[in-house]
């Protein structure tokens, strides 16, 4: 029934003269999941990359058509599981837009705090995983040490470490834990101390810099044309931070900079993410002592019914722009729901970026794209 195996069989036969077709994935140490790339090589030089998707496609969009507006939010954590909070936020936001619910100020601040913590956690994991792709195993553990603190904070307040389902239409599910502020402050302190380690081990390392600089170049025009968002586009100098250009929640009242690099190579994307972590810390520091008192959840009806119409909300996840497009017919379940996931568009630029470079460069390029496969496959 499945001709996917046929494709694999075909590619074991070499292409034209001097070409070598290899399958990277679906089980490969560098693809972080079940991404399957069929790569045509000439020696070690990449001539063509063809992604084969669908190994973990769960048809979330179809699933959501049978889930109510409260229920479908939890599914979105299973897409980009590293920024599940932000996915939840985007979905809850879209429902709130349709219902015209005004959420309390406290909930807004908590949501922003959680989003930024998630962003740091995601970038920490990316940092470790990318260093591992380049053959340095140790930064992974150092990055996970800090990430673990965030996970503990999440566990305490939200009840889970990865797929939190903490955002609900109208606010957040619980109030923050009493220890939350103190723990976040401890994390900020530790992060600031330990972040120099990453610089020593990774950023300033000559081997690392040589591997990253001038590799996987994406021009500004191409980044826009390929629909790249997030750190991938910002590394090419495209200003696309949704938090800045279409502020949601309270992002218009906190001070932070949109990180932009112009080189467009892997190192630029790397620097964008590292500097973004510092900006997230800056946002957290501004907000952590200023969480307003009050309700954490607006009063909503038990059964949510969106009015007839179309609603779209955009949020900035750790990987880029996440869009939720709900088409409602006035029922309790969405008529059609579309998730615009950042990884999907970013992946489409991979072939353009990696063509003509060495096989080793592919890992550097793919590492800085920060692909999360469930996000691409949905």
């Amino acid at each position, binding site marked *: 029934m499945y001709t996917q195996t046929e494709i694999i069989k075909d590619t074991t036969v070499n292409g034209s003269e001097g070409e*070598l*077709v*290899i399958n990277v994935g679906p089980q*490969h*140490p*560098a693809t972080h999941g079940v991404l399957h790339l069929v790569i045509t090589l000439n020696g*070690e030089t990449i001539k063509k990359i063809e992604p084969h998707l669908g190994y973990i496609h769960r048809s979330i969009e179809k699933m959501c058509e049978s889930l109510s507006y409260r229920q479908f939010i939890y599914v979105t954590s299973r897409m980009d599981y590293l920024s599940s909070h932000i996915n939840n936020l985007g979905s809850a936001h879209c429902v709130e837009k349709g219902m015209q619910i005004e959420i309390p100020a406290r909930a807004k601040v908590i949501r922003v705090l959680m989003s930024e913590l998630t962003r740091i956690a995601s970038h920490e994991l990316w940092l470790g995983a990318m*260093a*591992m*792709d*380049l*053959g*340095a*195993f*140790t930064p*992974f*553990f*150092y990055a996970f*040490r800090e990430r673990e603190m965030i996970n503990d904070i999440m566990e305490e307040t939200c009840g889970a470490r990865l797929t939190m389902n903490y955002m609900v239409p109208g606010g957040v599910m619980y109030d923050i834990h009493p220890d939350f502020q103190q723990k976040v402050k401890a994390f900020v302190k530790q992060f600031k101390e330990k972040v120099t380690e990453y610089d020593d*081990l*990774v950023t300033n*390392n000559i*081997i*690392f810099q*040589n*591997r990253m600089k001038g590799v996987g170049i994406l021009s500004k025009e191409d980044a826009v044309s390929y629909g790249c968002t997030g750190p991938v586009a910002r590394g090419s100098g495209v200003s696309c931070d949704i938090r800045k250009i279409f502020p949601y929640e309270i992002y218009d009242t906190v001070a932070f900079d949109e990180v932009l690099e112009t080189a467009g190579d892997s190192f630029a994307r790397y620097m964008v993410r590292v500097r973004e972590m510092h900006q997230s810390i800056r946002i957290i520091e501004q907000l952590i002592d200023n969480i307003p008192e009050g309700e954490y959840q607006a009063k909503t009806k038990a059964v949510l019914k969106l009015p007839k119409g179309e609603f779209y909300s955009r949020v900035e996840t750790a990987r880029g722009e996440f869009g939720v497009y709900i088409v409602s017919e006035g029922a309790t379940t969405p008529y059609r729901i579309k998730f615009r996931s950042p990884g999907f568009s970013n992946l489409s630029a991979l072939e353009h970026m990696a063509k003509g470079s*060495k*096989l*080793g*460069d*592919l*890992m550097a390029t793919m590492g800085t794209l920060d692909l999360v496969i469930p996000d691409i496959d949905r």
Partner: protein
Amino acid sequence: MFSLEGITNAIQNWLYNTFNPSWALVFECLIVILLATGLFAILGLVLVLMERKVAAHIQIRLGPNRVGPGGMFQTVADTLKLIMKEGLTPDLADKFLFNLAPFVVMIVAMLLLAPIAFARGFQIWDLNIGVLYVSAISSLSVIGILMAGWASNNKYSLLGAMRSGAQIVSYELSAGLSVLSIVVLSGSLQLSDIIASQENGWWLFKGHIPVIISFVIFIIAVTAETNRAPFDLAEAESELTAGFHTEYSGMRFALFFLAEYINIFIVCAIGATLFLGGWMPLHIGHWQAFNHIMDYIPSSIWFMGKTFFLIFLIMWFRWTFPRLRVDQLLNLEWKYLLPISMFNLILVTVIAILGWHF
């Protein structure tokens, strides 16, 4: 002073007194084979455990600690597991070469044990071209790797083997040149002579900066020759899954794995012999009292200590640095290491001729 020299001499005398010379030689050979194989097994187990523990501690983990006290028997358990596993041979592989390759790699590693002086007078074969022998034999291991990569009928393996070939061939050069600098200084190719020349101080300390440079180059080059990170392009996990030994499993994989660690041990032993005086205790010029105290530490301990220090250094590299790209690897050799070591060799020669070393 405690030494193994007495024991070896006693055994030899006893053998030659009891049997006729040809039988004595046969028995000696048997003893050497037994010892070498035993050393192989023990070294493999110890080094793998050491690697895992070093990695764990660098990575703020504990490492294996479940099997035996402090995880001591972890590698024994792993070996048992590997022995019991099925050794798969891919369908379209060249079966003869595929099965031969691990043994070639292993035999090369075993041959290299011959000239190494483990302690005073404890050497299998003190041949007069010891250094030459080592550089000649050590470049043979690339044949085994190429064989494995080619015979597996796997594209990843082939790429890994090709990378490995280019890498070992080029890094032989600077390894050879840095070894030459010690040959120039001591004026002999025989390892026992080189050790003897370090009686009043190790070459690393006696030879000024040029020897330190050649020591650094030697360490880098042998790291590359043994396919260790940051030069592990032949097996580059994130790029080629496992490189040349992707298709190997069971005991044949274990042989590759073991040979890698034995090779590390051997190159570190050579490094310790050439630069750090082998089994020679730490002697400083004319400090007679200090030298005398140092002599009380057995020579085997000196040798093992130095070797394991170098092994630790190489492991430390592995768990700190990212991997180089294949073209950067060759750049590093041809643009940096080779010119520097050539220039350095001239400096060393000048020092040796003018007798500027201590």
